[in-house]
């Protein structure tokens, strides 16, 4: 169980994060480059020193600013796998994997046994005599994981574990890594810029934006109730924040948002709530529609993007405030003559709106 609170100032950049993860689980920290992901891992490993905060693992305090505790990295039970793996170029694969055990002064026989086991576990026994320079990206990654995990660390830190791989090996290794993480008994913190990787590899997911954690939760919770535009964007949901300003007799409510009023089922609270609308619930019209759709938003088309993987659907981004995304079939788009710049009316029913606090 890792629990950490970290403050670090780097030039004009301020990192401020509190995070935790249980043993056997993976916390995936997702964020854009420059959000402070790598810095956060380095602070946990003890490779750089927080300005304030506390890091504890299974009750062992690794860092406590107030108490003046700061264990150096070599006294932390940590496995650190940096983005480019940093395999020692002057050592063979075997000696790379054995490095930590030798540094920990384990007896030679034990080192041999554990290294052999690690080489076999990661399927790199045949590469034992090679230098890292002669390995493919996927092989290097396995060596790096073996080198870190042979020490049986209490905390595993993975910095963009898939970023150094080419596109083709990427997918296969992602599967292997997910498999591996599910078998580990240590706490794992993984950082990635890819929300897809985060959702595939993390049991818990935290979103790091500009040095701050903006949302943190179990994977399922995050998927059901996104609370940051980052996650909502990833899942292709329209996300707004709003507050009830009036109620209808039929169990509906008017919610005031930054972009206007939205009619939705009554959230049952007067506090500010999150509002999501699936792009599939949004239909597009050239003329104001009649009928039961209670929400109308008018604006020019900013962008039309084919929706992968099949391409028979299109995502239409309206330059309204806030932007609204609609998903339509290619046929419908052709019939309406959709093109960027075209002024259009989007509508969605109150029943298609979800709210949560």
């Amino acid at each position: 169980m890792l629990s950490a609170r970290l403050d670090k100032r780097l030039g004009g950049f301020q990192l401020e994060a509190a995070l935790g993860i249980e043993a056997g689980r993976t916390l995936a920290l997702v964020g854009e480059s420059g959000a402070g992901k790598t810095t956060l891992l380095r602070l946990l490993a003890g490779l750089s020193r927080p300005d304030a905060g506390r890091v504890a693992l299974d009750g062992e305090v690794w860092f406590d600013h107030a108490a003046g505790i700061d264990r150096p990295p070599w006294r932390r039970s940590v496995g650190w796998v940096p983005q480019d793996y940093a395999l020692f170029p002057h050592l063979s694969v075997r000696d790379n994997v054995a490095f930590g055990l030798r540094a920990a002064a384990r007896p030679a026989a034990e080192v041999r046994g554990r290294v052999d086991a690690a080489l076999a576990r990661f399927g790199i026994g045949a590469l034992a005599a090679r230098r890292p320079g002669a390995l493919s990206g996927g092989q290097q990654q396995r060596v790096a994981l073996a080198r870190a995990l042979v020490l049986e660390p209490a905390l595993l830190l993975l910095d963009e574990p898939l970023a150094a791989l080419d596109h083709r090996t990427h997918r296969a290794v992602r599967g292997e890594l997910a498999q591996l993480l599910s078998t580990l008994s240590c706490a794992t913190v993984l950082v990635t810029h890819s929300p897809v990787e985060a959702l595939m590899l993390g049991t818990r997911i935290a979103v790091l934006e500009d040095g701050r954690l903006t949302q943190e939760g179990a994977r399922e919770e995050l998927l059901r109730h996104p609370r940051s535009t980052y996650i909502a964007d990833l899942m292709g949901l329209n996300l707004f924040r709003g507050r009830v300003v009036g109620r209808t007799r039929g169990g509906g409510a008017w919610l005031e948002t930054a972009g206007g009023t939205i009619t939705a089922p009554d959230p049952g609270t007067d506090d500010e709530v999150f509002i999501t609308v699936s792009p599939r619930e949004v239909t597009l019209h050239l003329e104001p529609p009649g009928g039961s759709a209670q929400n109308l938003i008018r604006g020019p088309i900013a962008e039309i993007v084919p929706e992968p993987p099949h391409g028979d659907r299109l995502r239409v981004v309206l330059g309204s405030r806030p932007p609204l995304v609609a998903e339509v079939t290619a046929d419908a788009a052709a019939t309406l003559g959709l093109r960027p710049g075209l002024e259009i009316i989007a509508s969605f029913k109150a029943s298609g709106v979800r709210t949560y606090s």
Partner: protein
Amino acid sequence: MRSVALRVAVALATGLMLALLALPLAALLVRVPPQRLAMRLADPVVLDALRLSLLTSLAATAAVVALGLPLAWLLATRRFRGKRLLELLVDLPMVLPPTLAGLALLLAFGRAGLAGRAFAALGFSLPFTTAGVVVAQVFMSAPFFIVPVRAGLAAVERRYVDAAAALRADPLRTFFGVLLPLARPALLAGTAMSCARALGEFGATITFAGNLPGVTQTMPLAVYVAMQTDLEAAVTLSVMLLVLSCTLLVALRVAPLGALWRRPDAERPAR
């Protein structure tokens, strides 16, 4: 037109430079026939100087490595006040006239010198002793080790040091297990250069340690003395020095033997 003129100028300058470098060495090598050279090797004057030179320059190199390595590491990895000043101090012997260095050593370690008095009280003295030769050589050759090794250590990428630290290696283990092996080329080059410099040291040695055959008369000193009486002995000693220095460079891979006549590879693309 201009490109032709440029080529001619480059060729001319290069030719003159090479002639200046190679001609004296060639003159040295052809002066005494090989058979005579082999006979003169057994000359006691030659042997004494050779033995003393090997002994002192090896001792000096060992001292430079042992005392210079921690300093090179400090300069490569730490930031502190006065660092630039320290670097200047380290570099200085490379540009100082050796006789000046010898005089300075005498003022420091001579009988009436700053540290010499303390030494004398302890019952030993450096000037005009073999140990004095070693001290002069250390003084003159240290920067030839410290400067490249410092650069070599600083060039080792931070990620390897961090990886070692996260793999339970304390700083000492990281130094010997990761930093030194990765800086090996610089380490070998630095050792070779400082050893060669110690072997060739003349001015500081003769000023500080004098010119006593068998005690402080190293090969360069013996060459200078022999020149006035026995030119053949001087040439023999010089050829030996030349061979020794070349051997040193080859042995420590500064100039790998196999690569001397090979066309160098194109520069490797950056990774």
